[in-house]
């Protein structure tokens, strides 16, 4: 099994080459991917938020007399697991954990990848080579091995999973950001800014970052989705989160033994993962369409 990672090839498509001339809002209603992606993502974010205030029952308290109730049972509309715990409550808390871990991994990777990518793009050849080759080396290490080593040394859990995702995604982010930043740094307005006496950090912050924001946002959504998938895989293998934390991957892990007895136990979290990842991927695609002027020009 390999860790899920979106193709870096999809990233740099449409790096804007000049300061702000985009008007994304105008295109929103016409972009079906974006709309569906937004709805699905918002739905799961809403479920995760609601879970902080309301749950149908405690997803960690066993009620043995209710074990393996089928879907449609009043009070347990998606049924219960082997210890009588409500599936809906577990899915709601699972959404919280899966989103937290996926978003956490993607956010930390984005931050570290952006710093490293900008440093590689803006510094001299030696720094660039060091960062680029370092990324290559890190990319050559299987993500699952990194996760297993971290779980063995630090103990498994949400934090370890976020760290594993960060370690795995950061090199890819670095490559994408470096590539996008180099494109911007070659533009005339950057040369003008330098001639005007602007420092390197000011140029990166004021001119480069805003111009690669579209790439960053699109990449973030794709890695967010990949993070959710990876977390599910790690928890399924028993090196992700554990109770009392609940994630969709953990639910799959626990359902494994009961698949021959009660297959919906595996279907519900699987369905949630598919919808959430689909939503994020569609959102990423939609945002790319909206934020990428080349694609927009081609479409028009």
């Amino acid at each position, binding site marked *: 099994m390999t860790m899920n990672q979106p193709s870096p090839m999809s990233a740099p498509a449409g790096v804007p080459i000049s300061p702000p001339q985009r008007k994304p809002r105008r295109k929103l209603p016409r972009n079906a991917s974006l709309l569906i992606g937004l709805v699905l993502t918002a739905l799961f974010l809403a479920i995760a938020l609601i879970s902080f205030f309301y749950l149908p029952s405690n997803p960690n308290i066993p009620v043995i007399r209710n074990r393996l109730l089928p879907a449609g049972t009043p009070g347990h509309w998606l049924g219960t697991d082997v210890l009588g715990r409500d599936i809906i409550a577990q899915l709601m808390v699972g959404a919280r954990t899966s989103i937290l871990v996926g978003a956490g991994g993607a956010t930390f990777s984005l931050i570290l990848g952006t710093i490293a990518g900008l440093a590689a793009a803006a510094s001299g050849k030696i720094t660039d080579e060091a960062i680029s080759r370092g990324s290559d080396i890190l990319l050559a290490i299987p993500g699952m091995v990194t996760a297993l080593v971290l779980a*063995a040394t630090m103990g498994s859990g949400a934090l370890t999973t976020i760290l594993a995702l960060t370690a795995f995604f950061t090199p890819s982010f670095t490559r994408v950001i470096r590539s996008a930043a180099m494109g911007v740094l070659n533009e005339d307005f950057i040369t003008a800014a330098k001639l005007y006496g602007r420092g390197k950090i000011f140029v990166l912050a004021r001119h480069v970052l805003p111009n690669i924001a579209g790439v960053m946002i699109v990449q973030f959504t794709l890695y967010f989705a990949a993070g959710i998938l990876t977390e599910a895989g790690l928890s399924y293998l028993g090196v992700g989160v554990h109770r009392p934390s609940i994630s969709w991957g953990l639910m799959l892990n626990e359902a494994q033994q009961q698949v021959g007895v009660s297959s919906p136990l595996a279907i519900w979290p699987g369905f949630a993962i598919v919808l959430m990842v689909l939503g994020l991927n569609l959102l990423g695609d939609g945002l790319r369409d909206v934020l990428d002027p080349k694609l927009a020009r081609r479409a028009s």
Partner: protein
Amino acid sequence: MRERMHPIARRLGLLTAAAALFAGTLGGTADLAEAASPRAAENKMVLVARQDPGTLDFVKSNLTAMRLWIPANVVEPLVYFNKDGSVSPGVAESWTISDDKLTYTFKIRDTTFSNGAPVTAEDVVYSLNAMKNSPMVDYSAAYDAVTAIDKVDDHTVKVTLSRPSQSFWQGMGAISGLIQPEASAATIATNPIGTGPYKLKTYTTNSAFEFEANPTYWGEKPAVQNVSVRIITDGTAGLNALEAGEVDALPVITIDLWEQLSKRELDKKYSLVTYPQVGEPTYAILNQKLDKDLRETIARTFDRQSYNDAFGAAWGAENTCTFALPNQVWYSPENAETCPFPYDMEGAMATIAEKGYASTPLEYASLSDVPDLSLPADIMVPAMQAAGFNVNRNAIDLARYSQLIFQGRPPQFDVTIMSGDANPVQWACPDPSKAGWSTYCSAGYTQALADADAALSQEDYTVQMKKAADILRKDAVIVPLIAKKGVGLFNPDLKGFLEPRVGVAIEMAKLHW
């Protein structure tokens, strides 16, 4: 003149005939569904094993995957201990035990091994010495009191002990007493030889064992001439193979399949057998460093029935407060007499409030990748929290669990749960500074075990073992929860299953169509 039938009567007759035909058809279908295995006519049977043992060296391996098939079938012990407490001859035709229980003299049967070589006193001396020096402590422990193993004549062997030892005598009916030819010792890992009712034809790693009846067997010939033990690691695939008629029995069905077995009603369609020998006790361990009152209060939050119910198979396990399996003489199911700390949430909550235990942080270490241990933990931890304990669950995988608990000194847990070997001697601890991973050390318990081993009669042995079990349960460090049984599923036409007499070995020779 022929009498004409009334039309209504004729129609009733036709209806009856049609009903009979329909019933016959149904009956025929039912007969077809329950038809005997095609292998019955060929005098064969196919059994399923879940694991490949890797090696068949019964001196150096204690893997259940090997112990299920080789002992009793291929290699026999000196004697057999029967379920009713009687002792039957094995390789030893007869035996005498001195009154002081210090000298055992075995008269060796005049027979041959399955390779045709005669069984000699030298082979017996060699076999017993091999087991005495076995790296498996479970096997060599039987010889702790043995000072000499001598050949008296070609068919007599004398074993001398420094003190009476029940474990020696019981070992002679277990793996510690298996007899093999010295000349074939080099091939033991792939082709063990013995005097058993079967001989191993082939063993193909990760595939199958093929046995055939031993033509020189000294006892009653096996009813089924050829036995194939197919290794099917996927449990569901094994059950499917049984339903499809491809195999005739799964003598050992692990706990992960119990729920499926019930839901598919296989326990009704096939002959379900339960037997304790392959079972395991599941028990909580409360670190001995914790205050005894605190340990007792924790023990009162354990709802054994919930743990049992969680496995979804009422026939698979018994609630117990005794560290034993139901075939051990000191075993007792859960009851008021043998459970000093029964489930009592209200009592536990009152004690926690009274003694302020809520302020004591407790770490519950649970194995995350062993479902039949994480499932009870899923019940136990919320119950402890509901009672008022400040307990944090540290769910860790087996590698880290080994590091922190099995090898960690001191072991890093306050509460944990385990399942495994029912041997009570594993908790013996003569020196508190050398307490094992369980943290348990009790001079009283260790002495009671020693007294039991030195018992001169079975009655005295039972009394001493019950005394040891009582000390163990009252100390509230090792807290037994349930005794899981061995579960097997057989084609209804395959009869004669006998509870294992030599460890966990399935005695194939007793099975018949």
